[in-house]
């Protein structure tokens, strides 16, 4: 596929207009955009009370000091993943029932008045109706609460995979 130079130039000039968030509140909000479960951050297990208690328990089983530390932090990491898994499962994105079940033409009195059956409504009203219809489609596509929690939990599979692989390696290394 060849790139149209005019389109490319237009894209570049449009990109210059995209400045991102400007206000402090906007910047603060956008800084948390990718943060949902916190599993990408590196935690400091070594300074926690649970870590010390775990190491004290494992050390009695004949593991080396290095292996004890590795097993304790891997086990805490695995617990962290499973806690996030539980959190995601129990609090998925809520369903906007009003938007999902609303009938844009018949049940919403504002649109009923504004939109005439002949199709001669003004352009901005048409656009507004199209905008709400697209929002409704998006909402419906996400499904009900069970679909949402399944989709959200599905995103954590890779964290569970790496968490258990790390724990298994730590236990079996000696």
């Amino acid at each position: 596929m060849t790139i149209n130079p005019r389109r490319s130039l237009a894209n570049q000039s449009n990109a210059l207009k995209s400045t991102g968030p400007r206000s402090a509140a906007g910047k603060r909000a956008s800084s948390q955009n990718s943060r949902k479960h916190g599993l990408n951050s590196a935690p400091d297990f070594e300074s926690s009370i649970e870590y010390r208690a775990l190491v004290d328990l494992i050390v009695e089983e004949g593991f080396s000091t290095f292996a004890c530390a590795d097993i304790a932090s891997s086990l805490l990491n695995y617990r962290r993943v499973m806690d996030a898994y539980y959190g995601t499962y129990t609090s998925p994105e809520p369903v906007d029932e009003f938007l999902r079940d609303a009938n844009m033409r018949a049940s919403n009195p504002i649109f009923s008045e504004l939109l005439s059956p002949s199709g001669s409504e003004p352009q901005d009203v048409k656009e507004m109706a199209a905008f709400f219809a697209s929002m409704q489609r998006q909402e419906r596509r996400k499904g009900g609460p069970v679909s949402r929690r399944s989709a959200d939990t599905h995103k954590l599979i890779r964290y569970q995979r790496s968490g258990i692989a790390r724990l298994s390696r730590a236990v079996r290394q000696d």
Partner: protein
Amino acid sequence: MLYNVHFGIYVDVAMPVEDKSKPLLPFLSSPKLLPDESEAEFQSGLQSLLSELDNPSPLAVALVSQLNECLWWIRRHTADKELLLHEAMARLLSKAGNHWDTYDNHKVSEALERYLNGSADNDEAIWIDEILAESKLTLPDLRVRAFKEAAKYIKMVDDLIHRQHQTIRHLQRSIDSIGYKSRLIKRMDLELAALESKQSVKGALTLDDKSS
């Protein structure tokens, strides 16, 4: 009596069972359950798994506890597959009737859930039958269509169940390795004790030779 889903057996929870998870730290053993789940059932599953191990170490108990949690997740996800079908059936039903714009999806969903459980009252049952008749669908037809509609999410739940199986395999290998390790340590202890006793007998004999 409680039904143990993991082993397909009935377990008498009143039976005195030695609690082998006692030495475990609370943050590893306390389960996070949903409001409608039974802690007694969860604990009975854990105890039946632990009863398979002779004198388990704290680490083994911690790993078995994680394994029990995986089995619990499999159970939750399996129940979700049916719920996904119900969700899709309600969605299809609320769209299918002649007056679909007047049906509230939430109402249809709740009524259908009770209808499928057999707990719907007469009015609800008649209402669902009417919508089915209007849409010229039988319950099996609706279920087939719902399966197609929810296929994407059912696949996701299958992936989640598969992940739990893989995790269980990892945990089993780790538990085996701890068992092997402790057996090896015991064997080495015994061999060391035998060598020490041999050494002391030898020492006593050489002392006897010198003295004679």
